C-alpha cells in the first residue's frame, strides 16, 4: 500500500494518543518562543544567516525533532536492556575530555568534533536516569531496604564527582537531583532519602550558625517522627553533627586558592567580570519588561548585549523583557503543564520501568527550569543551567529532544 508522505504524516499524527498530541503542542510552543528569543538575542550579531545562532538553532531544532522521532519508534525493551551498557559507554566518554590535553578552565567538558564540541555530560543525564530506572525496576531488594537506595545513589554520585571536577556545578546538581524524585516515586523510604541528602544540607548550613541550628532541630524532628532504631538515629544525628561542626574547621584549613576553587564553582559560568554583573543586568532586563513587555526584538536591554550568556543561560531575561510578566507566566505554565502531564502518564503506567523513565524526564526538565529561572531572577547563585527547549545550545537541545522522544514513546501506550 503506497501512500504519499503527507498522508502518512497525517496518519501518524492521528495515531498519537491525545496526551501525546498535547505534549507535542506544548513543546512546539516552547520551541517557538525560544526561537523568537534567540532571534532577538542574536539580532546584532555579525555573520550570515546560518552562522548566526538563530540559523543554527533552527538546524538544531530540525535535528532534534528527527532524533525524537527515532526514539519514539524504539522498542522499550531495547531501552531497558541496553541501559547499563550505554551508561558505561557514556561514563567513559565523560572521562575523555580529561585525556584530550589542555585543562583549560571550562573545556574539560567538551570533546571537540570539527569546529564544534560535544558535551558528554549532557547526554549522561539521560543515561544516569535510565540506569537508575532499570535498577529500581528489576531489583529484588525491597523498597524498605537501604541497598535499594544506595546503589542508585552510586549511579548518580560517581558521574557527579567527575563533573564537579570539570568544574560544572549545574550538571552535577542534575545527576544528584534526579535521584530523589525517582526513588520517591518508586516507594523508597523517606528516611533513607533523608540519610542521603542530610550530609549535603549539613555542609551547606554549617557556614552559618543559625541555619545550622535550625537544621539540627529539623534533623532531630525527623528522627523523632520516623521512630527509627535508637542506634541508627544516633548514628545519623552524630555523623551529621560532626560533619557540620567539622566543615568550618576544614574550610579554614584549606589554602586560599583551594577555597577559591570551591567558590569558583558558583560563579565560573557567568561572571567573567567578577562582580555579579550578570544578575543585576538580568534583573533590570526582566523588571523593565513590566506587565506586557517591550515586544519582540524591542528589548533595549537585550540589544545592548551586556549579557554574554544571553542566548543560552540567560535567555529567560530576554523573554521577561520582551514579553513581560504575561509572557513569562505563559512560559512557566507551559512547563508546568508539561511536567504535570508527564507525571500523569507516569502514574498510569503499568510497567515500573516506563513509569520511572517518565519521572526521570520530569525531574531533568523540571530541575533545569526551576534552577535556571531562579538564577535569572536572582533567587539562586549562578550555576549555568540552560532552559529546556528555549536556550540555544546543541548538546543540551538534543538531550531535551531525546527526553521528549522517550516521553512520547512511553506515553504512546503501544504494546511492543
Amino acid at each position, binding site marked *: 500500500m503506497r501512500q504519499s508522505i503527507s498522508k502518512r504524516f497525517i496518519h501518524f499524527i492521528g495515531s498519537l494518543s491525545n496526551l501525546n498530541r498535547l505534549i507535542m503542542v506544548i513543546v512546539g510552543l516552547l520551541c517557538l518562543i525560544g526561537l523568537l528569543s534567540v532571534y532577538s538575542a542574536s539580532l546584532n550579531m555579525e555573520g550570515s544567516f546560518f552562522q548566526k545562532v538563530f540559523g543554527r538553532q533552527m538546524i538544531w531544532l530540525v535535528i532534534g525533532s528527527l532524533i525524537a522521532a527515532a526514539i519514539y519508534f524504539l522498542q522499550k525493551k531495547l531501552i531497558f536492556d541496553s541501559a547499563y551498557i550505554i551508561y558505561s559507554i557514556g561514563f567513559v566518554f565523560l572521562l575523555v575530555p580529561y585525556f584530550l590535553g589542555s585543562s583549560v578552565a571550562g573545556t574539560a567538558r567538551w570533546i571537540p568534533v570539527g569546529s564544534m564540541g560535544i558535551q558528554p555530560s549532557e547526554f549522561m543525564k539521560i543515561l544516569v536516569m535510565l540506569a537508575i530506572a532499570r535498577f529500581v525496576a528489576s531489583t529484588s531488594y525491597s523498597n524498605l531496604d537501604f541497598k535499594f537506595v544506595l546503589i542508585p545513589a552510586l549511579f548518580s554520585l560517581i558521574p557527579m564527582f567527575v563533573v564537579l571536577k570539570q568544574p560544572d556545578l549545574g550538571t552535577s546538581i542534575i545527576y544528584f537531583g534526579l535521584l530523589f524524585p525517582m526513588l520517591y516515586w518508586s516507594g523508597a523510604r523517606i528516611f533513607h532519602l533523608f540519610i542521603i541528602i542530610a550530609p549535603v544540607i549539613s555542609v551547606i548550613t554549617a557556614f552559618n550558625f543559625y541555619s545550622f541550628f535550625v537544621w539540627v532541630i529539623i534533623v532531630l524532628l525527623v528522627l523523632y517522627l520516623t521512630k527509627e532504631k535508637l542506634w541508627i538515629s544516633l548514628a545519623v544525628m552524630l555523623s551529621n553533627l560532626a560533619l557540620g561542626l567539622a566543615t568550618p574547621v576544614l574550610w579554614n584549613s584549606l589554602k586560599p586558592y583551594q577555597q577559591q576553587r570551591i567558590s569558583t564553582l558558583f560563579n565560573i559560568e557567568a561572571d567573567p567580570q567578577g*562582580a555579579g554583573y550578570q544578575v543585576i543586568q538580568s534583573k533590570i532586563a526582566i523588571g523593565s519588561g513590566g506587565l506586557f513587555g517591550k515586544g519582540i526584538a524591542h528589548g533595549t536591554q537585550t540589544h545592548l548585549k551586556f549579557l554574554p550568556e544571553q542566548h543560552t543561560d540567560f535567555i529567560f531575561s530576554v523573554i521577561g523583557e520582551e514579553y513581560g510578566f504575561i509572557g513569562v507566566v505563559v512560559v512557566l505554565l507551559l512547563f508546568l503543564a508539561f511536567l504535570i502531564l508527564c507525571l500523569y502518564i507516569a502514574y498510569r503506567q503499568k510497567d515500573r520501568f516506563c513509569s520511572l523513565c517518565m519521572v526521570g524526564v520530569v525531574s531533568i526538565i523540571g530541575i533545569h527550569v526551576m534552577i535556571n529561572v531562579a538564577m535569572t531572577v536572582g533567587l539562586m547563585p549562578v550555576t549555568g543551567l540552560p532552559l529546556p527547549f528555549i536556550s540555544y545550545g546543541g548538546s543540551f537541545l538534543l538531550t531535551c529532544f531525546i527526553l521528549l522522544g522517550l516521553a512520547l514513546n512511553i506515553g504512546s501506550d503501544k504494546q511492543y
Partner: protein
Amino acid sequence: MYISHNSVTNLRKNVMIAFFMLIFLILIGRLYYLQIIKGPSYKGIAEANRIRVVPIEAPRGIIYDRKGQIIADNESQYNIHVIPYEFKQTPLADSILSAILGLSSKQINARIRNNWRGQFVPVKIAEDVDFKIITTIEEHRLDLPGVIYSLEPVRAFPTIIRMSQSLGYVREIAPGDLRRSENQEYKQGDVIGWKGVERQYENVLKGNRGYNFIQVDALGREVGRLEDRSNIPPNPGNDMFLAVDLDLQIYAESLVEGYKAGIVVMDANSGEILSIVSKPDYPPGIFSGVVSNNIWNQLRSNPDLPMYNRATQGTYPPGSTFKIVAILTALETQAVDPEWSIVCHGQYRLGRRIFKCWEARGHGRMKMHDAIVHSCNVYFYNLIRRLDLNDWANMGKIFKFGAETGCDLYGESAGVMPDVNFLDRKYGENGWTDGNKLNLVIGQGDVLVTPIQMARFSAALATHGKLVRPHVGLKYIDRRTNQTIFFTSKTDSIRSISPPSWEFVETAMNDVVSSGTGRGARVKGVPVFGKTGTAQNPHGEAHAWFIGYMKEPDQTIAIAVLVEHGKSGGGIAAQVAGKIFNFIHQQTVMQTVANNASVNF
C-alpha cells in the same frame, strides 16, 4: 514489556505535583515582584540609565630595602578606554579620537575588536598617555561618548638603583599562565611578576583590583551610584622589605660599571643578601607601562645578555678559590700533613704534558699554608695526586656545589661538581687521566660554580660550617592584620669538618689578604679573610674571582666577586671586595659613633 509492577501511590504522585506547583508559584511570585511591583523603577534604570562597571587597578606592594628606603613603589599612568556601544553612537567619534591620540581610526577599531569583551565593557586602546591628552579628551567630552580614562599604577624606581635582574619586572599575564592559574585569580590584562623578586613574592606584592558601579545616562554621563550594589574597593598589595642595603647596592653597582660582573654580599650567619649585582643590566623601570617592541628586542638580542642574572645564573670555573676544597680534603682525610712540602719550579710535568704555575719563576719550597697564601699551583698538582678524586668531590658536595642554593631568585643555575662517575660518563671509563684531576684541583675544567654558591661557600668558611640559604626577601607587612611577617629561611650545618681544619684555612685566608695574593681586599682596622682566583676560559682574558669574609664585632660579611675577563683575581676582584668591605665597615663605624654620641647627650 513487563518487568515489574508500577507501585506508585496516589499520595506520592500528588506530593510531586504539589511540589512543582509550589516552586513555580514562588517563581511567579518573584517575577510579579520584579516586573509589576518594582517594574517601574527597573524601567527607569533600563531606559534612562545603564550601569557601568569601572575596574580600579590596585597598586602592587612597595619594595623597601632593609633600612626602609624605597627601592620600588608605584606611579600613576593614564590609560584610555572606549565603551564600544556608546562610542559607535557618534559617527565622528573615531576620527576625533584618532586625531587626539595620533592613531589611525583603523588601529583604534582593530584594538576594540581584538580586546572585545562585550558592547558595554570598556576596551583599553591606549596606555601611558600624556596628561595633555586627557584634558583634550575632557574638552571634547560631548563629541566622545564612551571614551573614558583610568589611572593605573605602574612600577617606579625613585633611586638610581639597578639590581634589575634580581628585582625582576611585572608584565601583562601571558595567555598560557592565565589558563594555568587554576583558581581564576587572574584575569586577562592583569599584571604579574615575571622575574626575580616580583615573581618570587608575587603572592605578597599582588594587589586585588576593585570595581566601581556607576549609573550612566544615554550619553555616558555619570548620574550616580547604584543603590543595591556597593563599590568594591581595590586592595593594594603588601609592602615588603628586602635584605638588600640600598646604599651598598648602588655603591657596589658603581664599582663594576662597564664590566661584566656578578657580586653577592651577604650576612654569613643569616644568608641575608645585602647586595646582589649583575652587570651589565638595564634600568628596572624600563618595563613599567608600555614596553615598545624595540626595547624588548634590543634587550633580548644584546650579546652582553643584560637580562641574565650573572650572580645566580652565570656558571664559571672557580679557579684558585677552589683550592680551599682540596686543602680541606687533605686535612680531613689526613692524606698529607700541613708540614708536608714540595718545591715549585714554576711547572709540573705529568708524562709528556707540562702544567704551569702562574708564577713562572717558581715559588720555591712550599708548605700547605704558603701554598694557599701564594696560590701555588704546583703544590696542588702534587697534592691532588695523593688524594682520592671522590674524596675531593665529596668535600665539594658537602658545601653543596653542583646543587642550587635554594635562594629566592627564580631561575638559579646548579653548576657542576664533577666526581669519578661524572668523568666516567663524560669521557668514558679510561678516557680521562690524572691531567683532568690536575685541572680540577685548581678549579678549571669541568667544575662550574655560580657567584651565589661561592658567597655561600665563603659564609660557610666564615662561620665554620653554617650553610645558609641566601635570600633577598626579609619580611612583609600583612595589610589586613598589620603584622610583620618574616620569611623563614633554613640553615644547614656541616659537622664533618673538624675545628682545627677550619682554623687552619681561616689563618691561611687571613694571610692571603694581609700578605698574599688578595692584598687588594685589605681594610684598615678590621680582619678580612679571602682567596683570589683567576679562571682561564676559552673566550678571552681570564675571569677574576675573589671570595672571602670580613669579621666585624657583631656581624660577619661574606662576599663573592666575579669579574668576567678581569684578568687576575688579585687585581680588580680583590679591590672591589676591599672597597665593599670598607664601605660596610665605615657604615658600622659611623653607626657606633652615632650610638655613643646619643649616650653622651
